[in-house]
């Protein structure tokens, strides 16, 4: 159902994908899922790496549009910088599908988003259960945030906090590890120095989560049995750690599936069929999140 009057004049549909940063495994998987779905449709696939830079994001995405793509999929480093990209796309009649991170309030056609706050909530529920199972009665927990500019990732910590407090716990420390493993480790050490009695810690991403679990281990405690440590993303290192009892749990998004989903939406947008949204006001399509712990870790590939 590819339209024949596409931008570059040839018959083949060209899809441009602007990715957040190929340094990260999460986005490598997302890219793979997107590319495979696109090639399966017989489309031509063009990639741009934003390299965690808003200038690079705007320039590169606009260049993709200039080069004549028929549809743009973008996983934006700075969602709030989507404006100029979408303005250009609109001028050229190119639909834009946003993949994850956020939409920044711009008039994109659709956004596939994993439920960050919902993931935080899952983490809180798991943590409370596990703390009880550990036989601990302490009600103090900690939360490690990403860098302050990652506003969408911050929803994970917010969702976690809301739920865990509902369950009767207190977040005694909420500190930023700037999304970096090294800093996550240090921050966890500081948390342990101040609040040796915490019974759980939630981290906004897995590099910091696994690092925090290492800090817990280095303090002579167990990141599953003593201080329930939960990450986010289901990065391979988190899966490995969970298998080895080095991390209690993580929250999985499925970046490859999200990529495939964006291609499906792109196809529909090109065909001008109406899209179905989970949240029509924000044109959001949810991709479910899933909690991964020792119990179900073997089901993860």
């Amino acid at each position, binding site marked *: 159902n590819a339209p024949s009057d596409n931008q570059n004049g040839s018959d083949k549909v060209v899809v441009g994908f602007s990715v957040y940063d190929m340094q990260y495994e999460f986005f490598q998987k997302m890219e793979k899922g997107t590319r495979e779905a696109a090639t399966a449709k017989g489309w031509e696939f063009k990639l741009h790496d934003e390299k965690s830079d808003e200038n690079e994001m705007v320039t590169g995405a606009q260049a993709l549009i200039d080069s004549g793509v028929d549809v743009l999929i973008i996983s934006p480093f700075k969602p709030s910088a989507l404006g100029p990209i979408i303005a250009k796309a609109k001028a050229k009649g190119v639909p834009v599908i946003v993949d994850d991170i956020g939409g920044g309030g711009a008039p994109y056609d659709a956004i596939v988003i994993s439920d960050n706050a919902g993931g935080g909530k899952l983490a809180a529920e798991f943590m409370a259960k596990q703390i009880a199972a550990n036989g601990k009665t302490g009600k103090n927990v900690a939360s490690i945030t990403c*860098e302050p500019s990652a506003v969408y990732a911050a929803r994970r910590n917010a969702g976690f906090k809301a739920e865990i407090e509902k369950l009767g716990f207190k977040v005694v420390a909420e*500190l930023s590890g*700037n999304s970096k493993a090294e800093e996550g480790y240090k921050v966890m050490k500081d948390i342990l120095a101040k609040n040796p009695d915490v019974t759980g810690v939630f981290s906004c991403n897995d590099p910091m989560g696994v690092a925090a679990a290492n800090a817990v281990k280095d303090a002579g405690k167990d990141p599953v049995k003593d201080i329930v440590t939960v990450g986010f993303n289901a990065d391979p290192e988190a899966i*490995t750690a969970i298998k080895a009892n080095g991390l209690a749990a993580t929250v999985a998004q499925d970046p490859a599936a999200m990529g495939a989903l964006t291609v499906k939406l792109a196809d529909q947008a090109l065909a001008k069929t109406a899209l179905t949204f989970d949240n029509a006001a924000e044109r959001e399509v949810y991709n479910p999140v899933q909690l991964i712990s020792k119990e179900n870790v073997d089901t993860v590939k």
Partner: protein
Amino acid sequence: MTAVLRRAPLLLPLLGTVVVLAVATDSFLTGANIENVLVAAAIVAVPGLAMTFCLAMGEFDLSIGSTVSLAGVVCCSAIIAGQPAPVAMGIALLVGAAIGLANGLVITKLGVTPFIATLATLVIVRGLSLAYSGGHDQIVSSAALKYLVGGRPLGVPMPIVLAVVATAAGWWAMNRTRFGRWVCAIGSNREAARVSGLPVDRVRIAVYVLVGVAGAGWGLLISSQLQKGNGQLGMGFELDAITVVVIGGTALLGGRASIVGTVLGAVLIETIRNGLNLLNTPPAYQRISVGLLLIAALAIRGIRRAEARTLPVPVPEAAR
């Protein structure tokens, strides 16, 4: 006391910070926390000491953060490939030395400004690290590697042992050996060093190798903590290393160096960082506080120095 303060002007801001934190928090002065601060300080002090030589020479090495990453990746992937951990660590240190050697050769033999040469190496080595690891974490579980940060010979945490040894060696090398004097001589007046027949190029290369090895050592310490290596580790570390040196009082344009200052600079920075965390400071305010404290620490020194200014001020070679 005043003599001590003159020689180590950072003691005053450091003591001030400690007193404030001791009053403002109830956990700062606990044994666990002090150890925590000192271990963190020890870990930046080690590369800071090497960087002190580089700055004393009037040059920078910006590539150290990428070396941290590549050393970790190399060490961990060697362990994964079945090498014994000590061998893997040795390989990583060699890689660090090779990066330093490359920097030194490009700078001395090709005449590229150190700033650009090491900036280029920063970019290249980061690229190598990402390419070599394929963007994946190199996860290990190695007791021998863990010993680097977790070991406690005589009950003292290993990083502190390493830092103490490095400080003593660094102090001796800087202040008592020909090498250290030549480094300062080059930083003080490069042209004079050449005219006096000092082996300027060899000394410069040696310093870059030293920084490369120290950067790799830093990478091993980080990988020891995290039990992994990957292409993202160590980003921005170059500024951390240079900052502790500059705060410690080593002149940015070379000639003078303070080994003890570097160590105190590391302790001050880590104390501030730890204190802000203990006070649960939100990240935005953390940044502002770190910035202001940096300025304050140096402002106290700067004003003192301006007061001390008397003739004869003009020194040969516009030593700045």
